[in-house]
């Protein structure tokens, strides 16, 4: 069973509505395909991470990757 | 356009009620005083004094007029046991109806047993919690439990906590008890160069308490007390005296001098890298406020004699406080250690752990200088001319 964090979900929902609303403008503005892809990638990744967080399945965060890299180099103890 | 207007309305309805944390005044119990003690088994007993605003208003408006309807008491006092302070406060809800609101705490009273077991670690909750009032006055109850103290019903104020706070506050004109706020106590606890002291409160009868004297701590544990004169000596040295009255007798006549300004300076004198002695310098200014006697008071020489007497008196009080701190408790409540830490950090690092013993052995030089400026509306004392 997955316990969902409903506050997180509602925040996500609000953002999704906003971004879909924005997407309409993006298409009507006739932006290039590159812009569209960037937009979709960023939105999708934040959606996926947000859902994972709401489900309590937190993946290792960029801060941890960076710390790990620095530990490998030996800058940070 | 329509959508954005709707969105704004929707947003306002979310934003304006103050999120999750709105609390109505009717949903909280206003805590005016908090008492903390320990029982024999080491459990914490927390006592709260809660004020009922409606009843406070009622009692003050219908005072002497006879209320008529059923009287609600303006305050009630409840105690509860728990493993920690927070545990006790939360468990207490089994006997209390509403949420306890701690930000209004005016007075914090610590029990004797609680203090003897050490306050360094146990007060953590009051520091960690977001609603703690750092400006509450802290007092140690002597010869009574905090519950007994908080259960008094004073004539002077409908809320006992306000009455107790008042007596602690007016130390500004008498300097017989140290007024210690919670934040200052935390600073004392955290500072290893200085030992903590807290004002003392005793219960006289059902209606009265007395705040006089000081509780002396050593490494967070209550080790003893200073009486009112020693307390004043201590306050003189730590430069916390604002106004006070010092009395002395000269040739069968009694004189009271009101100290209007006091500045104390302490120092540790080093010789060959070791502390050789402590020195205390006091500069006081005062006015003659009462003179019961037959002498005349006309010339500067008369004033000089009184100045000398008063300075001896102040010196005596300071020496009494020093003797108590050095010989009986060996606890550096004056904060000489801070001076060593600041100006001789290398030496301090070596002696940090045994500083209180070193402090106890050091001789002290006390130097008091008092200037009497005014004599009030009359010059010579009241007497029949012969």
């Amino acid at each position, binding site marked *: 069973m997955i316990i969902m964090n409903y506050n997180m979900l509602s925040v996500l929902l*609000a953002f999704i509505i906003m971004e879909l609303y924005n997407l309409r403008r993006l298409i009507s503005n006739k932006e290039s395909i590159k*812009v569209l892809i*960037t937009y979709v990638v960023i*939105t999708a990744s*934040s959606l996926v991470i947000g859902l994972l*967080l709401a489900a309590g399945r937190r993946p290792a965060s960029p*801060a941890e990757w960076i710390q790990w890299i620095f530990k490998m180099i030996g800058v940070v103890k | 356009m329509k959508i954005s207007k709707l969105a704004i309305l929707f947003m306002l309805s979310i934003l304006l009620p103050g*999120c999750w944390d709105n609390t109505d005044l009717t949903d909280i119990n206003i805590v005016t005083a908090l008492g903390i003690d320990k029982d024999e088994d080491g459990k914490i007993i927390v006592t709260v004094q809660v004020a009922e605003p409606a009843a406070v208003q009622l009692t003050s408006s219908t005072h002497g007029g006879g209320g008529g309807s059923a009287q609600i008491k303006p305050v009630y006092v409840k105690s509860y046991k728990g493993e920690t302070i927070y545990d006790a406060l939360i468990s207490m809800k089994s006997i209390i109806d509403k949420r306890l609101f701690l930000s209004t705490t005016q007075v914090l009273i610590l029990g004797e047993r609680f203090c003897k077991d050490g306050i360094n670690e146990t007060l953590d909750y009051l520091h960690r919690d977001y609603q703690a009032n750092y*400006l509450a006055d802290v007092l140690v109850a002597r010869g009574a439990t905090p519950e007994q103290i908080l259960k008094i019903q004073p004539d002077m104020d409908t809320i006992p906590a306000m009455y107790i706070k008042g007596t602690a506050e007016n130390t500004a004109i008498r300097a017989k008890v140290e007024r210690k706020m919670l934040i200052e106590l935390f*600073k004392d606890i955290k500072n290893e160069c200085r030992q903590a002291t807290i004002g003392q409160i005793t219960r006289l009868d059902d209606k009265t308490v007395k705040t006089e004297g000081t509780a002396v701590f050593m490494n967070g544990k209550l080790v003893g007390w200073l009486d009112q004169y020693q307390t004043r000596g201590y306050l003189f040295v730590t430069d916390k005296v604002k106004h006070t009255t010092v009395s002395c007798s000269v040739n069968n006549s009694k004189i009271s001098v009101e100290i209007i300004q006091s500045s104390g300076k302490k120092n540790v004198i080093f010789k060959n890298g070791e502390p050789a002695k402590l020195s205390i310098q006091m500069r006081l200014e005062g006015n003659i406020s009462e003179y019961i006697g037959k002498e005349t008071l006309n010339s500067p020489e008369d004033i000089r004699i009184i100045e000398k007497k008063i300075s001896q008196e102040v010196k005596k009080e300071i020496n009494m406080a020093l003797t108590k701190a050095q010989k009986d408790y060996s606890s550096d409540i004056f904060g000489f250690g801070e001076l060593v830490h600041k100006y001789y950090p290398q030496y301090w690092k070596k002696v940090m752990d045994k500083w209180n013993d070193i402090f106890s052995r050091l001789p002290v030089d006390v130097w008091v200088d008092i200037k009497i400026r005014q004599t009030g509306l009359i010059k010579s004392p009241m007497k029949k001319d012969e």
Partner: protein
Amino acid sequence: MEKARISGLQLFLLMTGFLLGSRLIINPGTEAKADGWLAILISGTGGLLLITLYSLIVLLNPSRTLVEILRDRFGNAIGSVVAVFYIWYFIHLASLVFRDFGSFLVTTTYPRTPMEVIIALFALSIIYAANSGIEVMGRISEILVPFIPFLSTIIGASIVTTHDFTAFLPVLENGIKPVIKESLNLLTFPFGEAVVFLTIFPYLNNKRHLKKITTLSTLLVTVLFLYIFFRNIIILESHFLEQATFVPHLTSVLFPGINLEPLFDVIMIIGGGIKITCAIYAAVISLSQLTGAKDYRIFTSCIVAFSVILSLWIHENIFELFSWTGNVWAYYSIPFQVVIPFILLLFSLFKKDKLQDEE
């Protein structure tokens, strides 16, 4: 590039607000304890050099923002890759500030409100501000930023009741090492973060004053940090400083009589809002230039949403946040704040003539 101009005063206030930003929550110079003032002085000097470096880059590459400069100097391919890293860095910066504020508000003012809701509500106003453009941001800072030094001074001046002005003694009790470490921390957070302004400096209407404005702003911030540090240490003593999670908040609670906490929260939100807005704006402008979008505004909401999610994702608890900003952030920032700008400056100096010939 947006067709907009901001005045010198607006840039000065925007930058001051940005630099004060979230450092107002976390006491400047805590780790060096009583020697924090030394760390502030050292990092202020270093910050002055860094910020002068950034303004020199902009002066040598007139009316170009970060992405364009990078592409000009490093070539299209490498420049774009570096630009992507910078965009990530700006988003990361914004999300860290989001998290700082979320933690702060959850601890002190809204203990029972979920952090994601606080951050999300905060983010909505950020989207609005960033969408309004740099001119509006400049005007907002003109109204709001003066409150920060003003209120800080009031809070400080009214609380100093104990006059132990020797509280900062002894000097260098624990040696020079913690001072150096804290200086590095302060240099990279907040002074070096002004690298964000590489995208904002080009909008200044009168470039001749750029160096003067940045210098003044850095000096003002250093002085304010010193003031805040001394205020805190005089009120709280050095032994006590390290104990509190949010030191300046603690000092504001100590005012007898009235509750100054709301004033303090206002300062925080102004500083943090401006900081996040600048970071988001920089990220959005850079991204739109990188992808060649016609209007930068289409990216605002998705970038803000991403950084909000990132802020919730990035650290699990407050200790991770503090230890990360204390230990890793400095090293992580050095390439972005020092190395790349320095190379950029060298390239700009050497290729200057060549580029002008082409034009």
